[in-house]
């Protein structure tokens, strides 16, 4: 099995480079570079990002951001690092046009969703392919109880509730969590592949219900004219402002997820992922803890749904297709399962990059391929995903343990081959 893979070019993070880096880190100069490097990098990154659009255009800017972030995330662990990172992320899109800001909004939104799904998949080890269901719950809740005139929904027109964005956020959080628990009760007995298939079905059921229950949801005609979040007498209606809202929500989610992960609850999840029966024999009520993971993931998904409904100003059933679940899962896996910091990177790669590649063309000597980005971007993206999974199956910024697990799997394969 190891055969053909050996002939692929070694990624910069492979063992020889890593060891060289580790040796460098042990020298006094190296230690300083590692300690202060991230902070020195920040102004450079900021300057590069500010100047890049003038010189390179969006695509290069984005790539620069990506590379700088990757380096930064790999070497910075501290709270200050996170603060600087958040500030940079908040200021970056000020220079962008609205198309680019929309891309950044999507990146931030999928970061938020990824943090939610990561609790379920990365922490508790439950493969959930129906995550979009909770996203839909949040979005439709927003549509139902905020809109003075919510399109085709008779229910909304009859009741005309008219709550604001900020009131709906916590309600969506609770409702999505409850629905997560309701879904969890029957399905959490299942393990592995079976759980994946049932959750996949659940995601589809929700989408179909949105289509058929048109008294409430407006069916395929959807709901629209949804209000924007009010903010001190005005409305947050630009992509950038809503991007900031998601960024703050994502930060809160990161903060909560990390704290929980490092607590008794996170350890219980991890134990369940490692060996469910033994975890149970340690006194962990595995059903309750799996439900908790489901509920927490769902809650974050619900919050994301509220934001997307407010951003779009409308909700339609096709907005909540399986593709969303798959994309969120890709964000989590590419970024590095179990690792919150990796998810931001995953979202930039999975959600941002394909859009940035839209206007990509090759004009080189006799070769003129205009708009190959537009026409083939999904092909390129798919190929890139496959490449990533082959070269770095543990994702770009995995938690240390994930690396260990994948090494173990590799060793097993090698043993079996010999």
């Amino acid at each position, binding site marked *: 099995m190891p055969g053909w893979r050996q002939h692929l070019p070694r990624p910069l993070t492979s063992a020889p480079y890593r060891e060289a880096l580790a040796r460098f880190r042990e020298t006094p100069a190296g230690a300083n570079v590692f300690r202060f490097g991230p902070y020195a990098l920040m102004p450079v990154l900021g300057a590069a990002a500010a100047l890049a659009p003038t010189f390179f255009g969006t695509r290069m800017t984005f790539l620069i951001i990506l590379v700088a972030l990757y380096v930064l995330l790999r070497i910075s662990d501290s709270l200050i690092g996170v603060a600087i990172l958040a500030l940079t992320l908040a200021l970056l899109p000020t220079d962008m046009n609205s198309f680019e800001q929309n891309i950044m909004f999507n990146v931030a939104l999928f970061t938020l969703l990824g943090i939610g799904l990561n609790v379920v998949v990365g922490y508790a080890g439950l493969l959930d392919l129906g995550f979009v269901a909770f996203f839909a719950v949040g979005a439709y809740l927003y549509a139902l109880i905020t809109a003075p005139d919510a399109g085709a929904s008779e229910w909304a027109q009859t009741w005309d509730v008219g709550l604001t964005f900020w009131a709906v956020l916590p309600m969506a959080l609770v409702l999505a969590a409850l629905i997560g628990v309701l879904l969890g009760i029957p399905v959490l007995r299942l393990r592995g592949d079976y759980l994946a298939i049932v959750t996949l079905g659940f995601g589809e059921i929700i989408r179909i219900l949105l289509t058929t229950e048109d008294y409430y949801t407006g069916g395929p005609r959807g709901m629209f004219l949804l209000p924007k979040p009010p903010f001190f007498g005005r409305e947050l209606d630009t992509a950038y402002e809503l991007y900031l809202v998601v960024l703050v929500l994502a930060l809160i989610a990161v*903060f*909560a997820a990390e*704290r*929980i992960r*490092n*607590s*008794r*609850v*996170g*350890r*219980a999840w*991890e*134990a369940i992922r*490692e*060996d469910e*029966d*033994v*975890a*149970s*024999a*340690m*006194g*962990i*009520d*595995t059903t309750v803890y799996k439900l*908790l993971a489901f509920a*927490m993931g769902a809650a974050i998904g619900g919050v994301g749904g509220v934001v997307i409904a407010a951003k779009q100003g409308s909700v339609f059933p096709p907005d909540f297709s399986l593709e969303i679940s798959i994309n969120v899962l890709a964000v989590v896996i590419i970024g590095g399962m179990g690792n919150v910091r990796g998810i931001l990177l995953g979202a930039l790669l999975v959600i941002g990059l394909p859009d940035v590649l839209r206007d990509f063309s090759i004009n080189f000597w006799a070769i003129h391929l205009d708009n190959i980005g537009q026409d083939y971007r999904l092909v390129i993206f798919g190929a890139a995903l496959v490449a990533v999974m082959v070269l770095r199956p543990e994702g770009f910024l995995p938690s240390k*343990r994930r690396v*260990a*697990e994948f090494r*173990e799997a590799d060793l097993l394969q090698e043993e079996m081959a010999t």
Partner: protein
Amino acid sequence: MAPILSVRDVSRRFQGLTALNGVSLDVEESSIVGVIGPNGAGKTTLFNLLTGFYKPTSGEIWFRGSRVDGLPLHRIAAAGISRTFQNIRLFSNMTAIENVLVGQHLHLQTNIATAVLGLPATTNAEQHAVEVAVAHLRFAGLGGRENELARNLAYGEQRRLEIARAIALRPKLILLDEPTAGMNPGESDAMIGLIRRLRDELGVTVILIEHQMRVVMGVCEYITVLDHGEVIAMGTPTEVQNDQRVIEAYLGTGHLKSGAAE
């Protein structure tokens, strides 16, 4: 005094195979009891029944005055029974101390809300839990190995980590499934010492499955012999050693003799 554990006429069948057949057994509080028998005799199955991994096909298991057979695993753990595994089952990608902290689960209170708030009370409780875990690791001879991933520990250390994790539950009864399997005589001696300290220092009742006769005879006060799923003898080490049926059961396996000679 009533026994801490009482196994009453317990049987367990797997499809056609009867792994345990009408086993009865009483264990006195604060004793160290050995369960021996040839491979496939049903010893591990007995442990799996006691801890809830399997349900008995028939019979009852009473622990400290209440019936525990048929309870889910975590309820039995909460009742005060913990165990180790013949084929080591650590949380291998967690560190040694995290393994022990998982063992403390029942004795900690942090939930999602308090974890997110991170109030001083929660932080202090976590700090205390870590200190207790360090003490448990030291007790099992794993001082200084706290932050090592369980998978990277040496084999003997992994066996001891399983014990550290098991005592973190603060059990009344601890079940050790072949704790010295694969150990050299030096390591086995250290393990004997550790098993004694479980009872002497922590006051835990110990049931131990063991193949090395030297260990069994050295540490157990009372022995139950299983063969083909049935109890064929019970008694003190000397009584059991001289029991005709036991000698016959072991004939051909050579375990009793070679073990005793070690």
